[in-house]
């Protein structure tokens, strides 16, 4: 009895109850009074005053931090709740069956968005920032197994990751590294493509031997990556497991920053760290925004995951995570029923009462899919996996999770239904303007009072949360670009949750030439054209149905907005040529350049670098020395001395491969002559220093992202260019296709259409992107 009472009256529950009652009181106050007692003027005032306040607060730095942060978020919740209440109780009107169906579908799509908004606000209440947790008692350090599962990734890629893993700062006797090769299982070696599998096994084994690490290949490819790791778990015995994707290159301090967490909390099941992406996502690259914008996943790892950490709901993201073996063994290893085994594994750990930690310091550098197809395959896997979890292991019904964890996991699953609401939003106004379906029963005054403040508030909240990690309309573009592929995938998973199978993200695919992804672009041509076609109907209705001008106006704006987003999205489908070989980073620091041939030395600034070389900026032209002219000669031998943030010096030998004078500074590129040693040094210098990723992250996250006019202009410009390029590309594709049917070569078509091409040539199209 006493236990029950103490549970009922403990501080946490009491505080929550108090909060809940106060929240209900405030909300009911708003809803009841706003709806029932105020005239439209006061309603407008409430809506716009709250929005104005929200905008002002969003720009005040102090409001990013608690407790002012809570004020902002409660205000945002009130605006959304106010809209939801009005939308639910004032606008759902039956007129006729088709309109009612449209109304319900639109309402459901809106409520999905409102739900996402509320979950987002809840999750983002107070992102947690943690300090590193270095090991404390070096005499009793836990043993760590590093697993690098691989399936079909090239040897070069695995070599990079394994080399970096071998350099991790941790006592050698406590650290074991394993390449888990699923591309050379016994089944593979005996089945079709056995030769390739054998060669792969040989290469990987040799690599492991060279690096002094272990190589494991199992019998069969069961349960994909999760099965691969589970197999390795049975063969190894480290206290902790660091899991790295084969293209996720770790820094040296990945364990020295995280192992301490496990020493301090015996119930800690996992520590997740960010996936720092060295290359832009395909959409960023295609739109051309990557040079000055954060990466797509920065929003998740910089903001959302920190927020999840507060609720003890930080989950495993498939790589760059350290997990406690005993916890994994308790839940039977990595989960295998979902194709997003990582999230499901975390959920099982949380269900068993294990804690999780998210430590924000970027300590792996990975690669994003570099084709739209690979990108879509990856996202579809995530979407299907999360929907599988939603259907088969719904977080809301899982025992062992507390309410907040349930909501966090629900948020993770719920997000992936966005494709449906996007589709509805794209075609909703067309249904009204073209077919006359009455799907949104509100006057323009009501829209002004309720809808507009709510919609703008959503953008303000997005800026508040993600202003440093995402541009204003980027989420719209990301989600739009994916929706046509996601909708059928998610729907099929909803209908048959056990059907999806793990499809590995293609890592090797590259884009050989600039080309239009017509499959992806075509639906957006349809969206643009359909919305554009609806506009004349709007004009017609405006003239002949003056009673409906309110809603016609709304529909019109809605169409224009849809066209704006669709045009921006079109730019994402024109894929630019990319060579995978050189992942080049902008790096900063000092270097000493010596030209052994002439004995000349100079101080230089580092500009960029890759595993194969460095870009340097010389403050002054080199001169002097026997037998050499002023300047730097291409082909000349060079020796570059650099040091990392810890002060460790590296000397790389190579030759000058290019040089150019720009703004009074001599820029030159040095290509390394690699030996095994220098390769390892290059890995250590470029990938081993987590400060480099931290600095890069900081640099690209501090820009001001929220500037409506410039963002609209920026995206519109890029979108229009993208659309023109896509149109030209589509035209060319069509002509070439028809030409080949008629027996005319592409060159012949280009020649015959030369005057036309001059107006907007392929080359131009490539340049504007």
């Amino acid at each position, binding site marked *: 009895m006493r236990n029950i009472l103490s549970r009922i009256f403990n501080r946490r529950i009491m*505080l929550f109850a108090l909060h809940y009652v106060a*929240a209900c009181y*405030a909300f009911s106050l708003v809803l009841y*009074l706003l709806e029932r007692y105020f005239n439209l003027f006061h309603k407008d005032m409430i809506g716009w005053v709250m929005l104005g306040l929200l905008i002002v607060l969003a720009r005040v730095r102090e409001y990013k931090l608690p*407790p002012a942060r*809570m004020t902002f978020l409660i205000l945002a919740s009130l605006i959304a709740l106010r809209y939801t209440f009005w939308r639910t109780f004032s606008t759902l009107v039956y007129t006729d069956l088709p309109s009612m169906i449209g109304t319900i579908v639109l309402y459901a799509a809106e409520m999905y968005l409102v739900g996402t908004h509320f979950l987002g606000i809840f999750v983002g*209440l107070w992102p*947690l920032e943690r300090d590193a947790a270095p090991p404390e008692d070096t005499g009793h350090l836990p043993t760590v197994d590093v697993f690098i599962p691989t399936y079909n990734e090239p040897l070069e890629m695995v070599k990079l990751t394994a080399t970096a893993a071998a350099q991790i700062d941790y006592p050698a006797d406590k650290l074991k590294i394993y390449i888990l090769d699923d591309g050379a299982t016994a089944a593979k070696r005996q089945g079709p493509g056995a030769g390739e599998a054998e060669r792969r096994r040989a290469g990987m084994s040799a690599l492991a031997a060279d690096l002094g690490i272990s190589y494991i290949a199992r019998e069969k490819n069961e349960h994909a990556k999760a099965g691969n790791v589970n197999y390795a778990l049975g063969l190894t015995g480290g206290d902790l497991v660091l899991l790295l994707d084969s293209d996720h290159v770790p820094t040296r301090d990945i364990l020295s920053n995280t192992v301490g967490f496990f*020493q301090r909390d015996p119930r800690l099941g996992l520590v997740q760290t960010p996936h720092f992406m060295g290359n832009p996502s395909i959409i960023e690259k295609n739109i051309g925004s990557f040079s000055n914008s954060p990466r797509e996943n920065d929003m998740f790892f910089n903001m959302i995951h920190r927020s999840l950490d507060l609720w003890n709901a930080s989950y495993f993201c498939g790589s760059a995570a350290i997990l406690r073996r005993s916890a994994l063994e308790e839940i039977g290893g990595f989960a295998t029923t979902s194709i997003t085994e990582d999230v499901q594994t975390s959920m099982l750990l949380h269900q068993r009462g294990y804690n999780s930690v998210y430590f924000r310091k970027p300590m792996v550098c990975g690669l994003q899919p570099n084709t739209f197809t690979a990108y879509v395959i990856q996202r579809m896997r995530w979407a299907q996996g999360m929907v599988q979890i939603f259907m088969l292991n719904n977080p809301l019904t899982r025992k062992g999770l507390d309410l907040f964890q349930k909501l966090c996991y629900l948020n993770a699953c719920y997000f992936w239904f966005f494709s449906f609401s996007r589709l509805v939003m794209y075609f909703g106004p067309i249904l009204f303007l073209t077919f006359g379906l009455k799907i949104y029963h509100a006057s323009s005054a009501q829209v002004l009072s309720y809808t507009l403040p709510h919609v703008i508030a959503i953008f303000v909240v997005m800026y508040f949360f993600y202003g440093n990690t995402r541009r204003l309309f980027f989420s719209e573009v990301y989600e739009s670009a994916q929706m046509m592929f996601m909708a059928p995938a998610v729907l099929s998973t909803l209908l048959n949750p056990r059907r999806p199978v793990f499809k590995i993200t293609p890592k090797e695919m590259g884009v050989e030439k600039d080309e239009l992804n017509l499959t992806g672009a075509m639906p957006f041509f349809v969206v643009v054209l359909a919305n554009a076609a609806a506009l004349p109907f709007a004009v017609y209705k405006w003239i002949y149905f003056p009673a409906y001008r309110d809603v016609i106006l709304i529909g019109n704006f809605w169409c224009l907005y849809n066209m704006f987003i669709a045009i921006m999205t079109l730019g994402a489908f024109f894929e630019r040529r990319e060579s995978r070989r050189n992942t080049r980073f902008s790096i900063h620091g000092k270097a000493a350049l010596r030209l052994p041939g002439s004995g000349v030395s100079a101080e230089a600034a580092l500009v960029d670098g890759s595993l194969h070389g460095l870009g340097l900026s010389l403050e002054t032209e080199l001169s002097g020395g026997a037998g050499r002219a002023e300047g730097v000669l291409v082909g000349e031998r060079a020796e570059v001395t650099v040091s990392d943030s810890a002060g460790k010096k590296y000397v790389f030998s190579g030759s000058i491969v290019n040089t150019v004078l720009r703004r009074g500074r001599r820029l030159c590129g040095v290509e390394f002559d690699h030996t095994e040693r220098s390769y390892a040094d290059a890995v250590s210098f470029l990938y081993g220093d987590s400060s480099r990723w931290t600095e890069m992250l900081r640099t690209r996250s501090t820009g001001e992202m929220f500037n409506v006019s410039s963002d609209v202009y920026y995206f519109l410009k890029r979108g229009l260019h993208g659309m023109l390029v896509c149109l030209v590309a589509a035209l060319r594709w069509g002509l070439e296709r028809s030409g080949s049917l008629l027996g005319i070569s592409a060159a012949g078509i280009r020649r015959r259409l030369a005057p036309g091409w001059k107006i907007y040539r392929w080359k131009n199209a490539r340049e504007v992107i």
Partner: protein
Amino acid sequence: MKNRIMPLLAALLFAAASFASAGNKTYRSSLDKLNPHGTLDLKCVSSSYKISFPVPERWTVRKAGLLLRYTNSSNLRGEVSQLSVRINDVPVGQVKLDPRKTEGEMSVNIPAARLENGYNTLTFSVVQHYQDNCEQWDAPDLWTNLQFDRSFLELEYAERRVPAKLPEALGFMFDPKALPAGEVNVVLDKGSRESVLQAGVAASGIARRFDYKKVGFTASAGIVPGRDNILVGEKKFVEPLLSGLGAGFEVAGPMVKVVPLPLGRDKEGLPRFDRRRGLLVIAGRSPEELKTAARAAAEISFPFPGAGETIVKEVSLPDLPYYSGRGHIETGRKLTFRKLGLPPFTFRGIGNMTEDFSVRVPNDYLMRAGKYISLSLNFIYGPGLKEDSSLTVIVNDTIAQVINMANPAGERMEKYKLDIPAYLFTSGENKIRFIASLTPKSQACELLMVDSYFLTVYNNSTFTFPKMPHLLELPRLELFADNAFPFGRLPGGGDVEILLPESGYDEIAAMFNLAGFISRKSGYPLYDMSLSVGAPEKRDRELLVIGRLDKLPEELADGMPVALRNAPGESEVPNLSAKKWGTGPLFSLTRQIGALDTEYGMLMGMESPYVAGRSVLFFGAHSSAGVADLSRAVLDHDILGALNGTVAAVSFGSEASRRVASLDYGRKYWTGKDGRLSRFVYFMYVHPFMYYGSLIFLILVLSLLLYFYLSGIRARRLELARRRSPVHGGKEK
């Protein structure tokens, strides 16, 4: 001989006629008293107008005549233009419309046999032409003006005997068709409060039987001849009284009985009765039985019993919620026209045609918010209409929506939805008018099949009033006049307390008049009202104070907006000084020595000093007789229409001299749902900036609560990462 016989015959005929008309009475009324128009134009080629007039149940009409005065257009062609009169659709008179003599008079003898007890319809129709062949059907030359204010209906009638059976007698005596108004005397023992209360219940029940017809009550200790009487009391009062009049019987239980009106005994000691008037006896052996009898007398309408009396064992009354009074619409629900008592209506012909109905919105219904009343119409219109034909919806004389009937082939429309802004409606009675403007597509001179132009609105069309809050600023005497607000808010008088500072017969009669008024407005007798004498007892009620000005309880008198005296003394009198837009009228105050005119009574409203949101309405006059006269005067439509604001001085002399002076002076207060006022809601509504303030305050409080709560979670989360675990050799903090 012949010369002698003829005068004799004439004398005999005159004598016979005089004998036949002996005891007959005459009722004469100008037609503008029977319809809302003083004059009316009948336009176009063909047009008609109907007036409905009642013939009371107790009348047997012997003769009826109509004198109709009119003016017609001088452009008419007299040979083919005609004015006709029909009674109950039977033609009884017609006259050519002569363009040379535009002022006309038409005298019609209406056959008495064509008149029925109940409502009769008088139809005035014109057919008007300005040329023989091709003419424009709606030419402005085509008009005839009916001058109802100078036209008269005269009925000569004899009175019938009161039926012997109780249900018929109730309908006969308390007849809504009574002309010109109902008059009832209530006989009771003023010393018995229970009898007074139950007599009030009975009076309110009787007033309901009169429906919209004005009924005046008097009260006395004995029978008043020449009018119907009700005797209400316990056995000990009723039996001796009736025995004394020679109409004695035993009260054997809760009894309702009707007898011819006893007039006492003649010289021979034989009882005399007026058989054309009735006495309704409501009696019981105990207060409880009296209550049962009074309730039954108010309710009996079914033709049972088949006798002149009944003993009532029990009366079960329905539960009536707030705002369910007569004609009140139910908010938040779709109401078909059928439920609102409307039949399907068809407009047939060409030109403008109207159809009216009204809905009653609770007086404290707050109509401010940006809400819409939804009207979903199902209708059909015929072919051949011009594109500008339309159906216009008018709410309270303001055009709300217009539907264009643009399809020349005709069309059936279902669920044609019109959103009417709520602000077009007012609390209380709302008039909704449909005007069909049917214009033929045919050119002038083409053959018109006028009847084929039609528009029918089906009565499965619906009205939906959204749920709205109840909040109202009072006092507003006009609401009392309109709907007996706030006393009719809960039908049945469950929240009505009547306070009589003194219980004389005049005050009691005034109470009956006002209870009857409330009952007629709410459509339900005041079964549950309470009565107190001297000082109020049930304080959480709407308080109706009826009495002399100098007898008011002090705590009420102190709160009255104007303290007028009925004896010479010093009074502070407000006078309207200026009307200022926005802030309302401005008053000057004069402190005067004097007294209220003895022919003036006062109506004043104020907030109850006992319960916030409850009202006190004071009816007072210089004397008790003045109080009774005042109560009868306020039943007059003209007086009711002039009541306004907080304070009204009403002169209750002869009908012609009655005047009202209303002032919107004094402290205002707010009332909310069911008469209760939530201070919170009041403040939020009346002071919206308080709302903003409290909103900000709540957001801040919530933020802090949330902050402290999350701080706890955060601290625990970070603590786990700081604590040293013994598992790996760390030390516990």
